[in-house]
């Protein structure tokens, strides 16, 4: 299982994790998980950021005399220590024992909890039903809910051999979830269509 970071901030609905390596960010919409006691919390990655470690200190442009971008990091190796990559994850469900629940867990994630990217098999078992779509489409984050939902579905679909079939099924679920909200439905469908 690929470890991608560590929880540095947590609430009932989301957690923020910092990556161990600069720029080693999981993709938008990917399914990450972290453990809290016997619970495993699932989160959909959104809003990845890379910024200065010290709040208030912003990086400055350094490449004027360099020939390539990589040269900048090479000539100032301390840079890697001054920057950090972080990402937020929207909690979309949890697992207790063998059972997966598509609703919020009773407790938030723990700080310093390790964060892993779910392997394909777990992605499939998580998405064997579409209950999680409700949280995604109802989210109110810096990333538009349609954008995030579409990204998540695109990501999950990669775990399936028949991607199209998965996406059609998800689309149909969305159609009933968003009945009466045609514009939103169409926005998502446009973003997942094959």
């Amino acid at each position, binding site marked *: 299982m690929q470890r991608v970071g560590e929880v540095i901030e947590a609430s009932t609905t989301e957690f923020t994790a910092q990556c161990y390596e600069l720029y080693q960010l999981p993709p938008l919409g990917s399914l990450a998980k972290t453990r809290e006691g016997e619970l495993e919390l699932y989160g959909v990655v959104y809003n990845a950021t890379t910024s200065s470690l010290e709040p208030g200190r912003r990086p400055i442009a350094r490449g004027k005399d360099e020939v390539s971008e990589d040269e900048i990091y090479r000539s100032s190796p301390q840079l890697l220590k001054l920057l950090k990559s972080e990402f937020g994850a929207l909690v979309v469900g949890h697992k207790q024992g063998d059972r997966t629940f598509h609703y919020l867990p009773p407790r938030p994630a723990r700080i310093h909890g390790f964060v892993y990217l779910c392997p394909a098999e777990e992605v499939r078992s998580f998405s064997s039903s579409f209950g999680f779509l409700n949280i995604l489409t109802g989210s109110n984050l810096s990333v538009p809910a349609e954008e995030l939902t579409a990204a998540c579905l695109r990501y999950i679909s990669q775990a399936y051999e028949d991607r199209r079939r998965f996406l059609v099924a998800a*689309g149909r679920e969305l*159609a009933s979830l968003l009945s009466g909200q045609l514009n939103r439905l169409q926005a998502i469908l446009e973003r997942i269509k094959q």
Partner: protein
Amino acid sequence: MNQERQRLGLVIRGSLNKGIEVRLDGSASVEDMAVGRYVTIEGQKRRFFGLVTDVSLGVSDPRLATAPPDVSDPFISEVLKGTSAYGTVHILPQLTIGGDVTSLLEGPQPVKTVPGHFSSVYLASQEDVELVFGQEDKERFWVGNPLDMETKVCLNLVELVKRSNGIFGKSGTGKTFLTRLLLIGMLQKSAAVNLVFDMHSEYGWAGGSERGGKVKALKQLFPAKVAVFALDEESSRRRQVSTDFIVRIGYDEIAPEDMVLLRQTLNLTEAATEAIYQLYRRFGWDWLRQTLELKDADETRALLDELHIHEATYQNLRRGLGTLRRLAFLVPKAGDNAVKRILEYLDRGTNVVLEFGRYTDITAYILVANLLSRRIYAQYRERTERALGEDTAPPHPLVITIEEAHKFLNPEVAGQTIFGTIAREMRKYNVTLLVIDQRPSGIDDEVMSQLGTKITCQLDNERDIDSVLAGLPGKSELKQVLAKLESRQQALIFGHAVPMPVVVRTREYGSADSYKSLTAGEGLSQKQAEKDIEELWE
């Protein structure tokens, strides 16, 4: 439950009276849902059996209709079909099939409730349909097949003949073909004998088909059970019909009541019909001959004065009676009594078809059908009553088939004709009717309501449709079904002989195979088979 059955969708709303609405699954195509098809609904406690009465399209968001999405994209269209844009079918639940053993034994029961929300709906399987309409047996006759199904729809003919029945449909829709089938069914499965007034000579020997060629009729298929009586000897001979009896009717057999029915067709005034009664009182059974023989002389005038018949009335009457005089089967004195002969055959259990040959005009038909039926009925009545009193066997139940039924059963005359009486009193004297008509709205409402089973082919006149369906639960839904029948060889059957209304493609009639299947078990007599072979050499 059952893997092979195709699930159509889910019950979403409805009522017992108006039927229920089913939202189709995306995988079920609206275009496969024909009105008139059968479905089963898996309720929690029991299964329901119903009929598709309407198919419609819905959208979950009205904007979808005004600004349709890009359905040229197969992905989008696949997602939206059945979800945001979906089909619904309207279903009239008719029967329930219980889950437990006792209700299985009792068989399908009329519905008293509706299946719960989100019950699954399936196309009815062959077994379901068979369970409801039964298999052919010694009482049930296969009349047709449900649309798009191989299963047989069978009528219980023993039940059927207990009431008067009707076959309706506009011209060319298959009434005659259906009637032939039904007559064969009755002849095989019920204890009843038939008397058919065959206006166009198509039931006894051979009939025409719009597909060209001829089709066999009853006597060719069941020579031992059918007798052909003919009014028009010449026509029968020309068509090489093997007739059993040539019917002649004596002037002295025509009663004033028979004339009342002819008022319209003979253009008789009210006063002229009155005059007939006067003349009858004067001359008795000889009234017609005497009246026809009246000369333009003083005695005649004196007679008319005496009977208070006006000159104009007399002229009107003479013109009317003149029409009768042209009917060659009417003779001053008939040697052999047709009624007696018909009864002899009926008593032996032989079915009688009376062909009219060239007398296809309505006057002859009304006169003869009414006159013979009235007297046969009188005999039946007497014998049934006697049987009750003396504990003897009553006569064979009799079914009288008449065409153009509205001429006998319209509101103006239904109260006076024998047919009105028979239709109204059910089977009191062991006689019922099979009425065939293309204008059912012309038939008296009360008579229509007495018909036990109605079989109707396509009708397009609103009033005809209303009159056929009057009083039926789910009428407005069935109206849809009726209006959508194909223009030929399809019929809606409802009433006593079927557990629920059913649309059928009428059993094929007219091919060699059809004759074989219709006469199977009957064993086309060896003689007939030999004759058929002989005919090959002629």
